[in-house]
């Protein structure tokens, strides 16, 4: 099978990989470059747990063909922290008990960070809409919404965008 070279930026670092025809971005991130923070939940774009940012916009990495991200800026939960300092969203998720099994959390954090980047003072409805593509089966939506609102107050936009 023919492989294609693809270069992109992942959380600010340059990456160069060979990808298969039809290989999705989720697989390339996890197995190609070893960023395990985006998760596989459905492989068909319905659960949102594989959400990453491509040039600042949230995308479902299981539905993105890897060869289309040439030259793009990709952001994942692995890039949220500043050294050992947690991002305000991460702090708010911890303080607000917004993670139970934790499997949807990286996708939620990406959807939330995209929201805060374009709207530093979102309403509750804005937050609900922003995470409406992300399923939490532990049914912890209320703490998640509250945590995102708390992070916005705490300057969640500070570094992201």
């Amino acid at each position, binding site marked *: 099978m023919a492989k294609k070279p693809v270069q992109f930026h992942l959380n600010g670092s340059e990456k160069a990989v060979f990808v298969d025809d039809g290989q999705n971005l989720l697989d390339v991130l996890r197995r190609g470059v070893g960023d395990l923070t985006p998760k596989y939940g459905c492989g068909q774009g319905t659960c949102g747990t594989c959400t990453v940012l491509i040039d600042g916009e949230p995308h479902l990495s299981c539905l993105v063909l890897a060869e289309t991200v040439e030259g793009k800026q990709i952001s994942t939960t692995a890039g949220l922290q500043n050294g050992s300092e947690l991002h305000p969203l991460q702090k708010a998720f911890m303080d607000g008990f917004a993670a139970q*099994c934790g499997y949807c959390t990286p996708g939620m954090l990406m959807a939330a960070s995209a929201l805060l980047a374009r709207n530093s003072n979102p309403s509750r409805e804005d937050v609900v809409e922003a995470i409406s593509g992300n399923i939490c089966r532990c049914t912890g939506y209320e703490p998640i919404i509250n945590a995102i609102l708390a992070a916005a107050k705490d300057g969640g936009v500070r570094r992201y965008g």
Partner: protein
Amino acid sequence: MTIEFRKEYFADERDDNLNEIGKPTQRQDALGHVTGRSPYFDDHLFNGLLHIRCVRSPHHHARIRRIDTSEAERMPGVVRIVTGKDVPHNLNTLLSLLDFGLDDEPLLSEKKVSYKGEPVAAVIAESDRAARDAVAKVRVDWEELPAVLDVEDAIKPGAPVVNEVYPGNLFVYHGKYDHQKLRFGDVEAGFAQADKIIEGRYQMSPIEQAPTETCGAIAAPETNDRFVVYTSTQALFFSLDTTSKLLKMPSNRLHFIGGTVGGGFGGKVDSLHEPMAVLGTLVTGKPCKYIFDREEEMQVGAPRGAERWYLKDGVMNDGRIVARKFIGYFDSGAYTRLSSYAIIKGVGHLPGPYTIPNVYADVYCVFTNRTPATAMRGFGITGVDFAIEAHMDKVAYEVGIDPIELRILNAYRDGDMKAHRRLAKNTALIECCHVAAEKANWALSAQAQQASSLRDGGGERGKIPNYTATDQNGLVTGFASTAYARKNKRNDPQPAAPAPASMSRHDSMPVTPRYEPPVRPQPAQPAQPAYTPPPAAAPAAPERRTSFSSISGLRRR
């Protein structure tokens, strides 16, 4: 988030001078979760990882005439294809490890399939895509059989046999009965005494747990001829023991690592991914991953089973319930898994949080050609609680009293005898009703408001009935209770004689006492000193030889 405590109800029972309990505390895994570093099973990378995909039945019920893997084996990337012949001990039931139930489920079926999606072969290939392509090239010659998808149809005479180990399509309890029994007092006498008889039929569909992380496991060779297994299981030692049994492999060759589960809700207790992954590694010598895709998770992943309940209450005009009879059917799907246990648990819960002097239950674990059912959040209790509470509303409506007051009137109180012959303690249903009414601005009578779980319980309510009507309906012969754990060759399971066909199963069920008692006492009358139940007829007398596990209620030996 604010938590509202009502500690005063249990003030004499608890010490609140505690460092952790009652206070919010940070989850120990929260940092891993928010940084995306929590190690789920699929977050372990292996060079040369092989992928397993199963060939699954498109039919609910079919005989397997032939499996032809020759074309699939020649597909690019295919390393090996395994079938049931490659599984060293290809029959298991999860709870055999607790000496409960007969082995009834293969890892890969060889002769017939009993539910849609049942696996019959597994392709091990260099990529998931190669495995999927090869699965499509495996040819199975099916002989479709009539399927039965409804619990009551499954136990009619002449219904297709779903599970050969239980030819009556019913799990056999204690080697004796085709259902789990509960007898407390004399329910027919209670109905005779009641002002009204109120009946209802309730049912719920199967419910898929649908965890965000699908079920799966990765196995890899480890040093010293061992296997390391990363798994999403919720029950690490069930999974380890099941793997050990199916693959006839000493458990000290299995190094299982779990603990980080991306949502389970019960569906990852018996998922059978670990034995399949280890089998793949055993035959290829390479790391193997077996993971459900989303479609498999929804279709093949074991759900909470469907249930159907028939309730019949004898009620006095003032709302007191004097007799309650249950006939319940759990849809176990094609195999037992945990449904047998769900029923033991559910029957221990009957008749719900109420004190009713006469209770009767026959609860059946029925095999149908549906996906095998398993655990899910309170399974065994949730379905019958729905039936009980829906029925309580119906009773309230038909008797014409307030539904919350009906519950307070019939609520169990401290010191009352439960139908499973344990004293109720720490009861708080009345207080829960008070709080619910208060929050809903629901007016209660002064009498209901003054009721308390701490008062008016016990005494006559704390006694086992003088007479309990017993019977042997549903008796089956030819079954030893189980044999695996005891390795008792003489008690190896025998094919069973099916239940007598003449038996009717619900409503006007002819209850045949073992013998006619000289006098049938009426439950509402005071104790009748003249009547002494003959010892053999009285399960009311505690059977002290039998001990029960406090956790599961399963019979111990």
